[in-house]
């Protein structure tokens, strides 16, 4: 029989005023297992704690129940007390007879009766407690950043600055991401490249940062502090170490029909190319779909012109396996495909463009060298219509777009309108909008400037149709303020297309077992209190992969994610919470239900030989990684066989409490 000690606290008069503490101590004396039961004025005081410790030693107690204030207040205190006396800290149970008894009841008899039941319930639970040991796991001092946009770069810089190694894995040939494609940034109108490229250079020059470009994460195993990632570095056919980025090969390459992704496919690039002048790494890459040498073993011109001897047609994909303590997801976004939105005529009309295409059209390094022209005929447009919320804020049931607000469109449209009116004052600019959303520092001022100072015509209403009539784009829309249908004959129509998570996000989320919402944005561990962490421990979120945001927000979040990573990597060991789930392998069916409800991806399955009474066979059974499990218990209820149980809150413990309360 276990030996249990019960200690009833008066809490001065806080408890003793409405609970007869002596009666409580007396009443539980004969409970099974109780060998000592006593009371004291302040159990949490040094004297009270000493009393508990002495009782533990004197009576060789296996467990103690403290009837006192809320466990949220002093559970940790009494666990330490017990531990100091040689008792396992998890053999301590608290009966909350203050917040949930003495403070809310006025009648002494009633309060005492309830306190006795609460004490019995705690004793009943304690009889089913097991000593638990907190485990530790070592932390690998290296961080993986998936995505090399501004979010990934900023996180990497901050983590590296704290002295930890960082690998940035970028799927494109260069880092820089979407921000590199932007012309100017709101609300200051400074040049995007001017503020981004120094950061790219800084990242490339940092001793702690290793940029793995043109590469994708293929597999991730492990858990917080101990991830192993397999990274596929795609064949560039160019030796990164030898290539000087001189660009000669680009000039000589005869295959010039490749779509220029960087310019939103508004112009072409050669089969061997460097995405843009400031690319990091500034190394060429061969597009195997375009290259005649790789496709038909003909040409080979670039190899011949390359003085550095960097061209290598035989290059293969390379698999890199590395261990990380933390992983940051910074996979960013892409604009949605506007092709399916038939009524806006994007698919048919070259002069209906997306905002990101407009960025390139206005950029000095863009296809038109910064002169705003119509893609169809290269002429200067005189009437431009902007259409807001294209694919954003859609009714979920219509499946025509995203339910959420893409957040950045109002501001960049104001920016575009302003820049156009500034550079080409003869241009009429109309903006169809549902609402204009400008919460942000200097944002509303910026928008008002567009309207008031630059005379941009904002029309509240939605566009119903864009039709091409003899080269003019007839934009039909409603003007809700004037209550009329209007048609504007435009030369250029710009669609503020919604942004959506990068298409690789879903597979990365699955790989990392970090949860995502229905829109494929990564879910944060807590929407308010832990906005940069994934529920899966050791996975952090940076930038738009978590939800639409603009550059300053992205950078802020990137920094926050970095500080969380630093906080993790700064530890040598992680102490794991011992109140975690565990599966009884003799009962487990391996049915995979628990895995589906685990918010942390803590459950995996193995084929294992199970041995028990009359049992010896290989079965698929669930395993809980105690370093990852947070102890919520979702799995325990999903498990039909009762194989999955939660330490510290086991089925038996809770049922014992229920029994004691209902007695």
């Amino acid at each position, binding site marked *: 029989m276990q030996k249990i000690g019960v200690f009833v606290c008066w809490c001065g008069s806080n408890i003793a005023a409405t609970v007869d503490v002596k009666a409580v101590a007396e009443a539980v004396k004969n409970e099974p297992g109780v060998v000592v039961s006593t009371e004291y004025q302040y159990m949490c005081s040094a004297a009270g704690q000493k009393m508990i410790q002495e009782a533990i030693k004197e009576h060789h107690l296996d467990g103690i129940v403290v009837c006192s204030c809320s466990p949220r207040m002093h559970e940790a205190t009494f666990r330490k007390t017990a531990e100091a006396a040689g008792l396992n800290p998890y053999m301590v149970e608290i009966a909350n007879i203050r917040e949930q008894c003495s403070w*809310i009841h006025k009648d002494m008899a009633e309060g005492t009766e309830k306190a006795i039941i609460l004490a019995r*319930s705690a004793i009943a639970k304690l009889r089913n407690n097991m000593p638990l040991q907190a485990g530790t796991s070592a932390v690998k001092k290296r961080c993986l950043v998936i995505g090399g946009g501004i979010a990934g770069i900023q996180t990497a810089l901050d983590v590296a600055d704290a002295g930890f190694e960082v690998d940035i894995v970028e799927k494109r040939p260069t880092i820089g991401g979407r921000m590199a494609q932007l012309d100017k940034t709101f609300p200051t109108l400074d040049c995007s490249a001017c503020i981004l490229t120094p950061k790219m250079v800084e990242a490339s020059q940092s001793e702690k940062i290793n940029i793995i470009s043109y590469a994708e994460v293929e597999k991730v195993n492990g858990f917080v502090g101990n991830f192993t990632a397999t990274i596929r570095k795609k064949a560039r056919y160019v030796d990164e170490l030898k290539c000087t980025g001189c660009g000669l090969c680009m000039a000589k390459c005869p295959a010039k029909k490749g779509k220029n992704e960087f310019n939103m496919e508004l112009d072409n690039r050669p089969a061997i190319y460097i995405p843009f002048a400031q690319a990091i790494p500034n190394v060429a890459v061969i597009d195997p779909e375009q290259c005649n040498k790789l496709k038909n073993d003909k040409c080979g011109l670039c190899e011949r012109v390359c003085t550095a001897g960097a061209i290598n047609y035989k290059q293969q994909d390379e698999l890199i396996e590395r261990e990380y303590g933390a992983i940051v997801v910074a996979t960013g976004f892409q604009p949605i495909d506007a092709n399916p939105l038939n009524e806006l005529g994007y698919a048919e009309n070259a002069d209906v463009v997306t905002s990101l295409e407009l960025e390139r059209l206005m950029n000095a390094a863009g296809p038109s060298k910064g002169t705003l022209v119509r893609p169809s005929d290269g002429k200067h447009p005189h009437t431009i219509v902007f259409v807001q919320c294209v694919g954003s804020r859609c009714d979920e049931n219509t499946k025509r777009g995203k339910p959420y607000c893409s957040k950045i469109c109002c501001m960049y449209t104001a920016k575009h309108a302003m820049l156009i009116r500034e550079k080409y004052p003869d241009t009429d600019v109309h903006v169809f909008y549902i609402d204009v959303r400008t919460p942000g520092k200097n944002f509303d001022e910026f928008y008002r400037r567009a309207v008031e100072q630059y005379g941009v015509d904002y029309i509240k209403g939605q566009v119903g149709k864009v039709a091409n009539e003899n080269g003019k784009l007839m934009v039909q829309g409603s003007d809700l303020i004037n209550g009329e249908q209007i048609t504007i004959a435009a030369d250029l129509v710009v669609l503020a297309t919604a942004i959506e998570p990068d298409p690789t996000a879903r597979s990365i989320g699955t790989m990392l077992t970090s949860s995502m919402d229905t829109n494929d944005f990564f879910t944060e561990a807590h929407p308010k209190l832990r906005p940069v962490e994934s529920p899966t421990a050791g996975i952090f979120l940076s930038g738009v992969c978590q939800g639409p945001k603009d550059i300053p927000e992205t950078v802020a979040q990137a920094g926050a994610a970095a500080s969380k990573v630093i906080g993790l990597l700064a530890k040598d060991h992680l102490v794991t919470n011992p109140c975690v789930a565990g599966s009884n392998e003799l009962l487990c069916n391996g049915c995979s239900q628990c895995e589906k*409800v685990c918010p942390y991806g803590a459950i995996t399955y193995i084929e294992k030989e199970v041995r028990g009474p009359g049992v010896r066979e290989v079965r698929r059974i669930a395993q809980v990684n105690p370093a990852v499990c947070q102890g919520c218990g979702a799995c325990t209820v999903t498990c039909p066989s009762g194989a999955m149980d939660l330490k510290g809150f086991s089925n038996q413990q809770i049922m014992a409490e*229920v029994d004691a309360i209902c007695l």
Partner: protein
Amino acid sequence: MSVNEKTWKPKVVAFCCNWCSYAGADLAGSGRLAYPAEIKIIRVPCSCRVNPMFILRAFERGADGVIICGCHPGDCHYTSGNYYARRRMTMLFSMLDFLGIERGRTRVEWVSAAEGQKFANTMNEFAKTITELGENRKLGDLRCK
């Protein structure tokens, strides 16, 4: 034991998640917001830890009402626990209803750590409902009477 209608008092078990509702109950306590002593709280890490078995067990052992309290949807400490709890309890309650057990003996309420007043109000309301429903005769185990 004969049950005297006048002295009969309901037995109510309240499962409260550690992070929100249990804290809410503590707040009700610090605010000295009274609710009936017949309500006894069992602390669970999350509302998703509440197994339908526990609820049936409580009724078996003589409880007259069971209430499950958790964080508001969206606020779960474990991100999704209360969403699972919500489905599980919906299904369980529906089955109890289908078997003809009185409605109202079971309830789910989302109570945040800041809602001490709501906690007390909920408990008072629930105790009142259970008192009106009277003793749980349909789902108890005679051996525990």
